[in-house]
């Protein structure tokens, strides 16, 4: 059989029928785009999720389960069971296996968003995604006691600008009636969007956190004992307790040893977790969602195959005459069958190519907007093995589907002119 001729004829035939085929090809392209898109999103969402925090070797909090600790430190969900004494933080600071520590103090909120008291080290050491550091979209990191830095989502949702004055609420929750009205904060900076819970945070200094709680020992402001901002600035504060610590080690090989040492810390009961491991566990918990997506992907495959079969049957109906001509000039039934298969596979390849192009273009155009508006961090990356596999399955399935008309064409043309009785 003449492969070159078969290819030429198949391509010419596809081009000849391009008006009819354009729609069919569009259908196939859309379903392949959907299939590929869902698979890509699955991988990306999982990736974004499991790289919510990166570069931090250990997260330390009061003794609790790893998921609980992860949820309240990283995702701002739930509350700490207990605090960590400042002396513990200082003891860990002295450990020479530890490269850096970031103190985190939680408790207050601002219109439903968590207030995170920390210091410069948070900006310097926190990493997410592919080892990306935090970046300020505008302004600068807090330097004054009553400066506040807003996460990207907080600033966007509440419409805050630099130098806005904001009043924090005491305790968590969306509606708190107890506010730190006497000590307003000034927005000194706004973080760039990260697509992680960092966007949902309101960042103040540890000093500021201490200052606004002077006189609040009973849980409510005791009249006459609270400080005005001017009074507060005169004083220096040492935090009594913090909520959690992010730790980076000099040598990550020691992670498990340091984790064990912290878990057995004698001063007070602590838990140290590996954020990557805890994140993977959390993702497994949410596996239902992923499985549902997988099932949808399966249905999309079936839909596209049904579409492909319909296209082929439509095509085959009009071809009796041309098959007769080819047979008369000496084309073998195998060549007739091969034409069907080649056309089908070519169609699938074109659709796959278009789907990849559409997907890449959509992602390239939408990803900055998605990150800004929804905090969804989708990167444009080469396809991974699973996606190539899925993509390759489309022409293979097309080949199998193409065998149906190919076989019937082959059988008919073996028996005569190929279905038509010319003349």
């Amino acid at each position: 059989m003449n492969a070159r001729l078969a290819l030429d004829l198949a391509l010419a035939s596809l081009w000849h029928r391009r008006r009819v085929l354009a729609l069919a090809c569009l259908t196939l392209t859309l379903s392949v785009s959907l299939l590929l898109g869902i698979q890509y999103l699955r991988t990306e969402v999982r990736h974004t999720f499991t790289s919510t925090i990166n570069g931090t070797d250990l997260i330390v909090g009061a003794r609790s389960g790893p998921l609980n600790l992860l949820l309240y430190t990283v995702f701002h969900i739930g509350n700490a069971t207990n605090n960590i004494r400042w002396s513990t933080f200082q003891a860990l600071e002295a450990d020479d296996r530890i490269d850096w520590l970031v103190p985190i103090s939680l408790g207050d909120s601002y219109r439903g968003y968590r207030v995170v008291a920390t210091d410069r080290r948070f900006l310097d050491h926190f990493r997410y995604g592919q080892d990306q550091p935090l970046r300020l979209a505008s302004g600068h990191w807090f330097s004054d006691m009553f400066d506040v830095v807003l996460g990207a989502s907080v600033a966007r949702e509440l419409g805050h600008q630099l130098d806005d004055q904001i009043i924090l609420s005491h305790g968590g929750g969306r509606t708190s009636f107890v506010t730190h009205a006497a000590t307003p904060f000034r927005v000194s900076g706004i973080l760039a969007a990260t697509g992680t819970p960092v966007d949902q945070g309101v960042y103040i200094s540890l000093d500021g956190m201490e200052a606004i709680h002077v006189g609040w020992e009973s849980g409510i402001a005791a009249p006459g004992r609270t400080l005005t901002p001017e009074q507060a600035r005169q004083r220096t504060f040492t935090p009594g307790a913090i909520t959690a610590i992010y730790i980076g080690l000099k040598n990550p090989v020691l992670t498990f040893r340091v984790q064990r040492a912290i878990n057995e810390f004698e001063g007070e009961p602590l838990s140290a977790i590996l954020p990557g491991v805890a994140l993977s566990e959390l993702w497994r918990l949410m596996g239902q969602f992923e499985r549902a997506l997988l099932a949808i992907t399966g249905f999309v495959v079936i839909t596209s195959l049904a579409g492909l079969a319909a296209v082929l049957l439509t095509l085959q109906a009009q071809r009796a005459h041309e098959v007769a001509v080819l047979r008369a000039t000496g084309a073998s039934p195998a060549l007739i069958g091969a034409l069907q298969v080649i056309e089908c596979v070519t169609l699938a390849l074109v659709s796959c190519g278009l789907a990849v192009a559409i997907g890449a273009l959509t992602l390239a155009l939408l990803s900055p907007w998605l990150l800004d508006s929804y905090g969804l961090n989708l990167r444009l990356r080469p396809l991974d093995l699973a996606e190539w596999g899925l993509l390759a399955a489309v022409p293979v399935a097309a080949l199998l589907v193409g065998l149906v008309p190919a076989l019937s064409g082959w059988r008919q043309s073996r028996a005569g002119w190929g279905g038509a009785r010319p003349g």
Partner: protein
Amino acid sequence: MTETQDTAPAPAEPPAPALRTRDLSFRWQPDQPRLRFPDLELPRGEHLFLQGASGSGKSTLLGLICGLQRPDTGQIQVLDQDLGQLRRGALDRFRANHLGIIFQQFNLVPYLSALANVTLPCRLSPERRARALPAPEPAARALLKQLDIPEDHWHRKVTGLSIGQQQRVAAARALIGAPPLILADEPTSALDTDNRDRFLDLLLGLAREHRIAVVFVSHDPSLGHHFHHHVRLGRSHHER
């Protein structure tokens, strides 16, 4: 007769005729009447007119000669090849190499240009390519020119051609590479009288020029005077 596929006759023997059939009969379905065909013998380069009413089995006979169907009984010899001795694949190759076929209509592959339709047999058959001198493309141009196809149609889709032009392009496709035998199945029935006579003149003239034998099937007896030999297929050949 030898069984060699070589078309060149051995110098010592008289050349085999272009076509010879013996005792042919064929039945499409077991419950249908059996078609019986008269014995044919057509010397090389000569033209045979097969006349018969519709239903007389004209197209069936051509199908048998093409090797698309096998006869129930009898023998078909094209040149010095007994078709009964060829397997399906060899029959397809034999057809590509030695036969040109023209149908009543829908003769052309709709998505190829006129020129590509004419050179199609040369792509399927190395022998036809070798005989299309100096090369398939110039040979096709020459034929299209001789068959009065305007040059600006050569590279366009054949669907833009008139029926008469389409049939002449089909004739060029049958003629290219000078196959020893051309089978034409009512190629003029869709044409008006002027176009019909012009088509016949051109086809038979070029066939004579290239020493190609022609079997021409038609229901119209008025065309008979163009041909050397006449055979009439009739109801009498049917047999329960």
